[in-house]
């Protein structure tokens, strides 16, 4: 195998390793960190199914973003939706063995690249031209957008401008990564420019703001039921504190904390 194929193969495994361990670490950390107080934000659901519906509306429709800023919603939602569609479009390359029929029918999903780029350009434009958003942007905020634009643009150039790399090589390389039967990748610069930022973003997912993905599910403001009067909600550390202070129940003498 050529040096470049070895590099990208190792890069892939390195990225996936960081992704899995880092993300597991963060999810376990979020899970284990108590939310000691009830802080659901209005309009707060009074039932569990209400919370489920609320999170579903946020995750699938970006309902709050729609309420907050129509343009940002349009750019952000089309970009994320396109990302999901394009993910499914790419599964066919990685699928080991016989490919299910459904994956063979995903070709039209390639047009999702247009809303992807549209959304990204919009988000980048907002970051550059709205003074408030420019103020809060760090270099990494621009860099991430530019990387995803690079991924989208290189993909579009290959797909829509007849710059296809050898698809057999692509398939063998991608499937090889899953089945551990490594093979050469196509060495066209445009293909390398497509997969390098993908691997890079996978690697930085757990150590960057991309954590907003898992984060939304752990936001107590969104995932709590507004039922504080009906159910006693108390964290382990607070309960421990309560036990240690030995409140004299018979004489009603609170010792404070």
């Amino acid at each position, binding site marked *: 195998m050529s040096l470049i194929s070895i590099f990208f193969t190792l890069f892939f495994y390195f990225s996936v390793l960081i992704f899995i361990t880092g993300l597991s670490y963060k999810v376990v950390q979020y899970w284990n960190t108590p939310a000691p107080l*009830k802080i659901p*934000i209005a309009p707060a659901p009074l039932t569990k199914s209400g919370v489920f519906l609320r999170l579903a509306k946020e995750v699938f429709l970006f309902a709050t973003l729609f309420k*907050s800023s129509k343009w940002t919603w349009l750019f952000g939602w089309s970009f994320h939706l396109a990302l999901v569609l394009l993910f499914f479009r790419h599964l066919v390359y990685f699928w080991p063995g016989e490919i299910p029929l459904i994956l063979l029918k995903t070709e039209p999903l390639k047009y999702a690249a247009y809303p992807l780029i549209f959304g990204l350009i919009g988000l980048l434009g907002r970051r550059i031209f709205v003074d408030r958003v420019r103020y809060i942007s760090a270099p990494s905020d621009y860099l991430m957008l530019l990387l995803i634009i690079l991924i989208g643009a290189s993909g579009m150039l290959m797909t829509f401008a007849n710059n296809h790399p050898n698809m057999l090589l692509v398939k063998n390389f991608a499937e090889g990564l899953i089945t551990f039967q490594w093979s050469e990748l196509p060495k066209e610069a445009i293909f390398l420019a497509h997969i390098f930022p993908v691997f890079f973003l996978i690697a930085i997912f757990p*150590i*960057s703001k991309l954590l907003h993905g898992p*984060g939304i599910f752990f*936001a107590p403001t969104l995932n709590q039921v507004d039922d504080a009067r*009906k159910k006693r*909600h108390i964290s382990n550390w607070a309960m421990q504190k*309560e036990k240690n202070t030995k409140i004299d129940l018979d004489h009603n003498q609170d010792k404070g904390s």
Partner: protein
Amino acid sequence: MSINSIEKFPTYLAIPPLKKDSMAGNGPFKASIEIQKDLGFPGEKVDNWQQVAINKIAETKSKYRSVQVFLDSCMKCGVCTDKCHYYLGTADPKNMPVARQDLFRSVYRRHFTFAGKYFPKLVGAKDFDEDMLDDWYNYFHQCSQCRRCAVFCPIGIDTAEISMAAREIMNAIGVGQKYPNQILGKINKIGNNLGMPEPALRDTLADLEEEIEEETGASVKLPLDIKNSEVLMVTPSADFFAEPHIDGLIGYAKVFHQSGVSWTLSSYASEAANFGMFIGNYDVMRQGALRIRKAALDLNVKRVVVGECGHAWRVAYSFWNTLTGLGSGGSDEYSLKLQNQLDSNYPQPQHMIEFTYDLIQRDKLSFDKSKNDHRVVTFHDSCNVARGSNMGDIENGQFILPREVIKAACNNFSDMHKSTIKSATFCCGGGGGLLTDDLIDLRIKGAKPRMHALKRSEQDNGVNTLAAICAICKSQFSKVLPNYDFDPYMIVSVHQLVSDAIILTKDSET
């Protein structure tokens, strides 16, 4: 200062272009050594403050999931940037919610994350140095923890959680704000924010009873420390002395009088406000709540009702059950004792608005609405009630119930623009521990979005009365209304409207 000499502010509202450092400064007065020590904080800034602060950040984010998740999750989309009343009123970019959080987040990244440790410039990570601490002190005291930004954040980030944590960390290194910390000392020693002892309170209540009897001919009582009463009423101490608050207290008394439900105030727990929330300190907040629990047990009451106070109602509704077991559903010995005593037919605690609304629903109160005909009323949803609580256990009850109570007592009601009420309500500009004269410039500027909406209601619908159910809102509005060319007396308690229209039975034995 006469009304005429007050600088008038324009009431139009646009998203202002950034004016960097327009609110730079030293922040509010700092707490003295004694004040800090009373609360168990270091008296002065500790020598190795940076290390102590970093350790405290580590502790706080391990105890509060909100802090840990919110510090990681922000994707800097910027939709919160134009949602804060302090940004809209001051144009200082550090008053944009995300920029305020970033004061904290940049330190978190620098000291706790891989990217911030090795590539600080790339991700905007910054050292926790003296300049940063100054910015923390200044700008975390320009946040009223109103949570309007959280309503608009697509991933639920609540700046109030970050601002409370930041104040908690500053207190841990001995840098505290005078106003809330001094008040917390008083409530711990005497039982209310004013430091008003039992005899003074008793006198005040007796005077009020006389006043009501003179005016109405009905012997409406304001009982204090009466054991075995049905209801323990816990209300902000401002209700005992401040205008317009006191007319609200008279309103509660009249409603209780008509309801025939026996009630009492407590001199031991003569304060519903709990500034422990503003400084993000669980233990201090719990101490305040425990006083109420103790009073409820000592007075052997069946119900606990909370008066018109915004953050107090959030603490009572959302936190009391957690802090003290005052609520239901607790199975530990600690909650059970209280729950066995309290009447489970009613939610515990209840808001006075819920109490009055319930009587109205059951036709137990009659009103002469024409008494309020000189008024065109609008309702200011107070942040903590609107965004951090509920009433009536129905969806959006906290918006519905107060309006229904007003409409029962008044013929003319008109809401302000819908982008400025209910869950999107604008803060009065004085909440979250900022209701102090050393922050008056901020308070006036922060009131601008609310004043703008009120001005439109005045012009379009002839609104001349602003009703609220929060002691801080009432004090703040009394002070800042003249700056926007309004009558400072247009702010009233909702229960003042009730008080003015309610028809009293002269025989006190109803």
